[in-house]
């Protein structure tokens, strides 16, 4: 039998206060990001904010600096420019948040600037993403609704699946996971796009996985340990028992997402990043957030082994 982990006896519960500190700080960032998004102040992608993104290539060499200067000389101060690796050389992505109700005008305006600034070096546009402000608003509304409904659905499932205390703990853990990923993305200054929202919702559903497995074991052990041992050691034992499971189940999913992150290309890059973070945090939180909540609750109002 090949094993990554032999039988462990780590005192996870004893380290819960460190975990609370780390989680607390990151959750604050997450909340800040969350509030900023709802107020429309965060760094929203053009999906939500409106704007135009253009991809294409120049016939001859152009540096990012030249391109940036050219754009800002013509009123596109906020242009975001990235050089991309494609089969054709001199391939760039240019993104501006300027919007107008008729979005084809923006793209045409950008093309005109490039033609004027780089005479004799034609820019061939490959793809365009132009989103008018009203469409951005619609998408924002839809995303907000989707987040609320998905969270409500998951929470509802948790409530019917667990008893009260486990239910509350699982709920807090789920929210914690989503907020933590959002917080880290906020620190990394990633834009919030439709795909990021998709990733957050997906991991809200997925990160529960580890908590469910752990809680199942805790409940099983609570029955066994009914007569001997205290609550903290029961939980600790349960965590140690399922540790290899927790790690390996997350590992397979993590591996595929990691590969997607590495070779999937820039379209799904941040999406994969969010999922990777979510998978790690989901495992972490089942051990350091979900279980300690049960423990602290039990300590304050014992209802032990009902």
């Amino acid at each position, binding site marked *: 039998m090949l094993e990554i982990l032999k039988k462990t006896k780590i005192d996870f519960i004893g380290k819960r206060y460190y975990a609370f500190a780390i989680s607390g700080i990151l959750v604050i960032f997450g909340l800040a990001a969350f509030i900023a998004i709802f107020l429309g102040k965060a760094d929203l992608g053009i999906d939500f904010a409106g704007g135009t993104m253009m*991809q294409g290539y120049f016939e001859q060499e152009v540096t990012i600096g030249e391109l940036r200067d050219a754009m800002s000389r013509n009123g596109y101060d906020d242009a975001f420019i990235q050089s991309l690796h494609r*089969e054709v050389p001199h391939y760039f992505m240019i993104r501006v948040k300027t919007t107008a109700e008729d979005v084809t005008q923006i793209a045409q305006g950008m093309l005109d600037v490039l033609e004027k600034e780089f005479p004799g070096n034609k820019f061939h546009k490959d*793809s365009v993403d132009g989103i008018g402000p009203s469409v951005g608003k619609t998408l924002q509304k839809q995303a907000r609704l989707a987040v609320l409904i998905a969270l409500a*659905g998951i929470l509802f*499932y948790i409530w019917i699946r667990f008893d009260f205390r486990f239910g509350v703990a699982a709920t807090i853990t789920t929210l914690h996971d989503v907020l933590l990923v959002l917080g880290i993305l906020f620190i990394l200054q990633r834009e919030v796009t439709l795909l990021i929202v*998709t990733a957050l919702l997906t991991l809200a559903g997925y990160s529960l*996985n580890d908590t469910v497995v752990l809680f199942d074991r805790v409940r099983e052990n609570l029955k066994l340990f009914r007569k001997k041992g205290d609550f903290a050691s029961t939980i600790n034992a349960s965590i140690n028992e399922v540790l290899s499971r927790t790690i390996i189940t997350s590992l397979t999913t993590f591996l*595929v997402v990691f590969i*997607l992150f590495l070779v999937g290309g820039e379209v*799904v890059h941040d999406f994969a990043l969010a999922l990777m973070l979510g998978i790690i945090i989901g495992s972490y939180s089942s051990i350091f957030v979900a279980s300690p909540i049960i423990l602290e609750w039990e300590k304050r109002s014992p209802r032990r082994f009902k």
Partner: protein
Amino acid sequence: MTQKTRSYLTLLIVFLILASLWYLYPSVKLWTMPQSKKEHLKSTEPQDLIELEKKALSLGLDLKGGMHVVLEVDQSKLKEGEKRDAVDRALEIIRNRVDQFGVAEPLIQKQGGDRIIVELPGLEEVDRAQALIGQTAQLEFKLLESGENTEIVLKKIDEVLAAKEETPFDEEEKEPVASTEAEEKKKAEEKKKIAKDLFATEEPESVSDTTDTSSFLEEDEDEYYTERPFTSLLENMGGYYLGVPIENKAKVELFLKDPDVQAVIPEDDEFAFATRTEIIQRLEYQKLYLLKKRMEFSGKYLVDARPLARDEYGKAYVNFKLTKEGGRKFARLTGANIKKPLAIILDGRVESAPEIQSKIRDEGRITMGGAATFDEAVDLSIVLRAGALPAPVKIIENRVIGPSLGQDSIRKGTTSAIVGFCVVLLFMAIYYKLSGVIADFAVLLNLVFLMAAMAALDATLTLPGIAGIILTVGMAVDANVLIFERIREEVRTGKTVRAAIDAGYKRALSAIIDANITTLITAAVLFQFGTGPIKGFAVALSLGVAISLFTAVVITRVIFEIRKGYRTLSI
């Protein structure tokens, strides 16, 4: 699990595998077809290629390339009464224009109160399409070419094309044509039958002034098709219009684009298709007209047009009103052309070609053909008003995915899927040995079932959809890891192989279901609210997760059942 259940399940699994292969076959055939063969098929049998593309798993815009635009109909400048069907008018105009691009699966849809979504997958003439969609509608009235002249033009086209056929391009291209000759003949035979049937019945809308066409059918039948490559694709010739069976349409268009064919069409004539197809004798046709190029009358003189319900004779009407100036012009036009058909053309396509009954001044009535429904009268009046009252549209969302970006996404998506898949397979085989290989087999089936289900359900594969498939692979083995870890624990406590397997599956099941249900909830929400690419993700993920319940739990179980008799377990 009893012996009986096991046999039933095995049968079910075999059946599912066969069904999946059946559904996947067109996709594999299409995706492995070399580009040169595709091009060849496109120029010889375009309909076959379209059929194949329809059956294969369709790729989303982000992979295939193409255009997705959302238009907003600007009603701010319209008066209260004019707003009534402004969006419908715009929709009608856009549908008509988009049709001309011959895109395989265009999507034109109303969204909310005043938005229209237009999706043209695989389109390359993006700039032209955008310019065309944003344009104001062109409503024109033109006279048709006479039956005799039409026949002369057709004869010339046949001659030109027949001469071309005799001097085939080169050996390579000739071969596939030869191999399908028998098939061609059969098809031709069928067509002849249909043509005869058609002529046997009375055509309600055809006009008395038709030339005798029976001679076409009495000639030597074998020569008929080689001598008339063009007219053999048409039916009901000699009237004011030509019927093009829908399966021939692509070929007819191809022929008409041929420069040699264009050279024999008189300078002041032009061919134009009807806007819509129609069903005659259970076969789908699109009418083709030979028009006189000169614009006799313009839509700008129209003031209003309204449909009228069917009267006691079963006829539906459209009443229209013209401006004073328009009335004078129209009277001159109609007075000089009584008993001749007048084509109503929206953006280059013939909406209708009613026969002029009498001199019309500033108010007239179009009597719809015998079988026309009230809805068709409504449509025609919308078209007439669209010419009179074009509601301006603006593009508020514009996504163009160039073919090179799509190709890049396909390559990167497939690479990550293949690499991820192999890593997971390898990991499972090493870590869980033979049991891992069983799980690998289950994941492989999961992938096959998933792709087949997507093809069968007409779902669209997008880049996030590929990510969803990748995620499914990770999650599907998750379930097996849960089961195997549990079995290992049971083995450690000293249970027999049989008992350990039973306990492992039983105890892991609830955790597996929990994880999958929450994932399904999110996927359902994403499907409801997501845009195209994200819908693709939601579909792939939810189908994958649901299928994984079967493959990871049921299929591996069936295999394990067989191994229950063993003393030791390779896990």
